């Protein structure tokens, strides 16, 4: 694991533990692309991937490229370290991102918002994805202001 620095949450996993449904997401992430599984019937995008579309009950999805940009839907600035090794990481911003190219709810992403002043983050901020490669198999999506 790389050095811990303020604002960047150190991810405690080095493998995505993917199954057949989620592997395409992580393959694309390693290439720096944000993709999402889209229902072939009603076009609902669902993250994390699920076995069935909650809108139309379809079980067939195709992964599509997403623009990789979105909007802060909500966020919190984590100031209290919940574990000793997080003392160097706080304060960091954890955010819910609504992704362009999706319907919103059902495809939101939870991510660490980095390279920002925590005091100047607002709901509605435009953000873009960055992939932090923590191992040969796992590139973790983070976001930064666009």
């Amino acid at each position: 694991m790389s050095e811990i620095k303020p604002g960047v949450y150190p991810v405690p996993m080095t493998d995505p533990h993917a199954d057949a449904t989620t592997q395409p997401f992580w393959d694309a992430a390693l290439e720096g692309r944000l993709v999402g599984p889209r229902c072939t019937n009603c076009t609902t995008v669902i993250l994390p991937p699920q076995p069935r579309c909650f809108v139309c009950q379809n079980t067939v999805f195709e992964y599509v490229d997403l623009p990789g940009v979105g909007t802060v839907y909500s966020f919190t600035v984590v100031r209290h370290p919940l574990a000793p090794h997080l003392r160097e990481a706080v304060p960091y911003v954890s955010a819910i991102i609504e992704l362009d190219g999706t319907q919103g709810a059902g495809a939101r992403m939870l991510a660490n918002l980095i390279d920002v002043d925590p005091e100047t983050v607002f709901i509605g901020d435009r953000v873009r994805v960055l992939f932090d490669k923590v191992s040969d198999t796992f590139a973790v999506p983070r976001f930064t202001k666009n």
Partner: protein
Amino acid sequence: MTMRDRTAIVGIGATPYYKRGESLPHTQLSMACDAIVGALEDAGLTVQDLDGFAIYSNSVDPAEVASVLGVPEVRFAASLTSGGGGSAGALGLAAAAIHSGMAEVVVSVMTLQQAGRRLGGTQVSAGGGGSTSANPYSAGGVPPSLAFTVGSGLLSPGSSFALLTQRHMHLYGTTREHLAEVAITQRSHAITRPTSLQTGPLTTKDYFASRMISDPLCLFDYTMENDGAVAAVMTSADRAKDLRHPPVYILGSAHGGAGRWGPAIGKYFQAPDEYFASSGHRPVAKRLYEMAGVTPDDVDVALLYDHFTPMVLMQLEDYGFCGVGESGPFVADGNIRLGGKIPVNTHGGHLSEAYIIGFTHVREAVEQLRGDAINQVAGAEIALVTGGPAGLPVSGTLLRR
């Protein structure tokens, strides 16, 4: 035909409330048994009468408790799924068991000892230096969905509810002053009670001087963590009439929530816009009032599950005490204080009296309706008790004297 007025709470029992870890050498099991025996004695019943367990959040194993207590025959043993959201709903589960004839005297109980674990700690192992060996999921395999949330840094319930709160502030203009009003009001209720773990007043200055934990929530927006047990014994309305105290009838009980609510909280946050910044109780409240045949105006005292101050605000909206988005100004006007429009958490709640995962609220509702509460609401006839917000189910129960 609903179960309205067909069953009643007839006994309440509790251990003392202890600061975290200070209940040793008692155990979760021994405290649960103490609370259950106390509740039976309060009702004028004995272990010989007890034949059912209706629980939530895996508070006890009924098999173990029945064996330890010497219950002659168990006729009902069931639990609501998920966690603290089921606290008020467990009363409904007991009522259903009694009303259906499956059992006659049913206990609901919560027991908590945080000496060796903390509910408010990390949900996902935050340590491990890149290894997954410390991960709680690893024994049964790491679920593939975890990789989609593990990088966010959202580790605790407090951070999860902070996200709902921030959105509520953004949509409706709710402020930290509104959160402070909840914390300060409840503290003022707690400090008149000998059972309370908090004994001194909380001022606005104290509130704003406390450390931020996860914006916009500071230390005093959080529940306490502590030890203790509370139990409630229920039976049929017919049998209740002959027991020691005036019955506290179950007017109605509902649990559940919108279908997309469950994993929205604390996990994936995918709830639709219309109820993201809510307590998740809105559909439960609607069914509850319909079953009970009353409206929010009929409720005299509200015991609202309060692990975090903003979730009291959102429940005030979802249970119809004020409009959606209006809870901040509503509490700022003093409406939840003793003597206000709807006194809330007259015992001090999780925030200031003690945290027994919703069951101090049940105890207070019964005391209010028996007329012997320390912070008595004059003439209280109908009380609301809630469980959650949490993952589905959340729950609400209406009680009357």
